[in-house]
């Protein structure tokens, strides 16, 4: 599944990228996290505590069990702290 990945806040800092396009063996957000975690220590560190992560698929909040779509924009980030 080809995805446009975006990372924010400490997720971005741990991975060292603000975004990338990747083809992952994953059908859900949770499976994408597992696939990404295998790519290196930065990813593994960023995704080590899944309860501290939030996800948006094509700019809408989704849960980890949300189904991915080919070419979707998947953003991974900590709980928001604006306002």
């Amino acid at each position: 599944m080809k995805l446009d990945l975006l990372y924010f806040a400490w997720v971005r800092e741990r991975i060292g990228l603000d975004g990338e396009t990747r083809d992952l063996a994953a059908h859900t957000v949770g499976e994408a996290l597992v696939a990404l975690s295998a790519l290196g220590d930065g990813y593994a560190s960023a995704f080590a505590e899944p309860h501290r992560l939030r996800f948006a698929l094509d700019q809408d909040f989704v849960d980890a069990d949300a189904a991915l779509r080919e070419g979707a924009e998947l953003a991974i980030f900590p709980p928001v702290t604006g306002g």
Partner: protein
Amino acid sequence: MITVRVQTEAFDLGAETHALSDGRTDIGAVASFVGLVRGGEIEAMTLEHYPAMTAKALEAIAAEAAGRWPLLGGTVIHRHGRLLPGDPIVLVAIAAAHRGDAFAACAFIMDYLKTGAPFWKKEETGGESRWVDAKAEDDAARDRWR
């Protein structure tokens, strides 16, 4: 009907509320809120956001408020970038015929924005910087509207 802006520039509450009510005679109440950077040990704060999603998320929150209460206009402004203690971060101004609706919608938008708009704060203290953790009390404030 509720305008949303995401910007680095400061804003002016008087100008924003005046723009909502100017030339109208149906508005009886304008409730507004400004959030500011608090100092203490914090020397600066940088707000990161998710540009493609931010306005969309804020507009969805504003639309939800407009569906719950009879509103006559509103403005939501959220800044991003580096801010200093005392700087304004966020503005919500809501116009309605009656004060109860204006107050409720203004508080609702702030509570939902805190937990549903893609912003992240990083604080600078003594040359170190750290990401601010989300607060459980913000989830609780949002959940009282459910």
